[in-house]
């Protein structure tokens, strides 16, 4: 299997799906001529032309709405947000149109649209450009939310998202575009939405992590292994639908759970996962579920403060020790 960056894996997924299905098209700020603010769409304009790869004005609400209309009319749009921070402007179209149209039309319209782009923390871009928004979108019935943690997952999940008949929010971690990994070349390689993966097997504690927190959790697990604590690291990969069974089975084995995420703690996806753990496997817990989250403050610009606001290996190690009573 070739080794490539997450950026190239995403690019490959887009290229394969654009080639596979002529109803797929890509639209967003700087995606065509500039080849993407993060170069995820490099070479696509050249290969598929300006009708399939379209630069938009700086009007998130506008082109998100265009996308929803195109999806209702039978196309399969991929809308790139330069970052998910700007998707906030488009939320009326995402939430009130994309998420609800199938329901409100009694199933007459399906909305096969993907909203994708980078999200999560980035280095020193301050409060408005460094935040995790997945819990917003996961909140609404009608939206699927996907967050890959490896180049292979990124490719397989993006292809599934494009082929899905419902609106999918696909959040790429801004700091992970350069992360390398083996990626299957097979043009039919997909990963089903709603299926998580055990990224590392262990017996003493389960760390549920997504996106950037997966490699962080794996490092924490390596460190804890040296101290005699064996961690299982689970990546749900899809936030909604959530593969809660994978999490449940793991906790039945380990009796301890740590949920690691970049987002703010209040009403986060981690809060939802914690609640579901309590509902499903209360009798198996040996300790209260421990959450490791971003600080409950807007992201600081100052480098030292920013470092403290983003969860790191030490935070996860401490949390695992806490639930393991060591």
């Amino acid at each position, binding site marked *: 299997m070739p080794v490539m960056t997450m950026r190239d894996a995403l690019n490959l997924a887009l290229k394969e799906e654009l080639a596979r299905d002529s109803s797929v098209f890509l639209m967003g700020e700087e995606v065509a001529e500039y080849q993407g603010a993060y170069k995820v769409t490099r070479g696509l304009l050249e290969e598929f032309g300006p009708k399939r790869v379209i630069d938009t004005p700086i009007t998130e609400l506008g082109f998100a709405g265009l996308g929803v209309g195109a999806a209702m009319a039978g196309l399969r749009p991929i809308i790139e947000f330069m970052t998910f921070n700007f998707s906030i402007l488009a939320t009326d179209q995402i939430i009130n149109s994309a998420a609800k149209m199938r329901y409100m039309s009694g199933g007459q319209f399906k909305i096969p649209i993907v909203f994708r782009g980078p999200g999560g923390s980035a280095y020193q871009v301050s409060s408005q450009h460094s935040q995790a928004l997945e819990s917003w979108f996961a909140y609404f019935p009608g939206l699927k939310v996907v967050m890959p943690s490896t180049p292979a997952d990124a490719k397989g999940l993006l292809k599934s998202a494009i082929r899905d008949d419902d609106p999918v929010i696909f959040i790429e971690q801004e700091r992970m575009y350069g992360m390398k990994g083996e990626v299957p070349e097979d043009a039919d390689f997909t990963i089903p939405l709603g299926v998580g993966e055990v990224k590392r097997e262990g017996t003493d504690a389960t760390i549920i992590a997504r996106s950037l927190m997966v490699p962080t959790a794996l490092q924490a697990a390596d460190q804890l292994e040296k101290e005699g604590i064996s961690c299982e690291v689970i990546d749900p990969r899809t936030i909604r639908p959530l593969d809660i069974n994978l999490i449940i089975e793991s906790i039945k084995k380990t009796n301890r759970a740590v949920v690691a995420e970049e987002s703010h703690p209040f009403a986060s996806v981690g809060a939802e996962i914690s609640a579901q753990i309590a509902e499903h496997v209360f*009798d198996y817990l040996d300790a209260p579920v421990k959450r490791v989250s971003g600080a409950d403050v807007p992201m600081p610009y100052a480098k030292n403060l920013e470092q403290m606001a983003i969860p790191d290996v030490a935070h996860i190690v401490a949390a695992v020790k806490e639930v393991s009573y060591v």
Partner: protein
Amino acid sequence: MATQVVMPKLSPTMEEGQLARWLKKEGDKVSMGEPLAEIDTDKATMEMQALSNGVLRKILINEGESAPLGQPIAIIGEPDEDISELLKTASAPKPEKAAEAPQSPPESDAAPAGDEQPQKVETPEPTNSISGDGQKPRTDGRVLISPIAARMASEAGIDFKTVQGSGPGGRIVKRDVESAISDQKNPAATKGAVGRISLPRPARAGVVYGPSAYRDEPVSEMRRTIARRLVTSLGPVPHFFLTMEIDMERAADMRRSINELYPDLKLSINDLIIKVVAVSLIQHPEVNASFQDKTIRYYEHADIGVAVATENGLITPIVRAAELKSLTEIATEVRELAGRARARKLKPEEYLGATFSISNLGMFGIEEFTAVINPPEGAILAVGAMAPKPVVKDDRVEIRQTMRVTMSCDHRAIDGATGAKFLQTFKQIMENPIYLFLDQ
């Protein structure tokens, strides 16, 4: 300011306490409410908490030593403070009243709450001894336990109230229940069920055993109270008696088979009983014991005194380390010892210092009787006659060889359940003597 820590009153009837364990050593920092030591009272082992902040400057009594209420047992102060005055006064025992006055220990274990009134004297408040991460244990009577620990305890039939919690605030967590389960599986702690029997290694040829080696364990405060009470109520050695009926079919068969093979051996049922008693004692060392006032002595070997009636009276020659000897050796040795006993030719070391005795009146047709313990031994087994009797087996009445044994135990050293467990093992092996030849 440096203060003396005095022996606290930790139970309503406590008059003195034995220091079971210091949880801090001299020079350690201590803070108010932190466990300082474990004290054996007449009722239980209790945790004693520090009532001031500072450094444990001086420990005045060692682990295993006792002190009356109010006697200074340690000094807490600043690291560089002069404590010579306190050391001087500490050597003169304080009147008991000083410790007595401001405390109101709970009347029962169930009501340790609300013990927060100000205390003027350095006397720790009683608490249930829940260990943990140093946080103050809860005293409202609720047991903190994690869901999985609760479930495992219930599945294993363990009353989690008896489990010590090691989690925050004394929470009982999985590992605590796991260790309780493994304690439960340990035969020494098994309730009721008789576990797998592991026999001691057999004696090597030519090895002569002198009197058994032993270890002395300090008599705990609780054990001393039991001893004192029982003695005053029942006499110098407080006996209690346990009787069991043994199905002797297989034992009788085995004896018959052995005697067919070795007609000269004349193996008796009593020889078999000696061996089985010895093996059972090794399984239950707490019965192979002797109460020694300050200590309880636990013997390594089973030196079995065999009561022999002579013209001049009873004498009990000893089969040393009987658990290691074969039936052949035991039969030969007993016959030889009994012969010399009747001829009054036993040396003192041949009849003094058994760890357990057997008295058998079966040959006189006695069905069941109680024997008097030969001090300082902890117990004696009175063996009745083996006789065919109707026995209910699988809901049918059958005629089987049975035998009744009654063990007299010294209650100062042995409790009812302890003796009963020993008898269970004895019965198990006696009814299936093939055990003697397994597990080696």
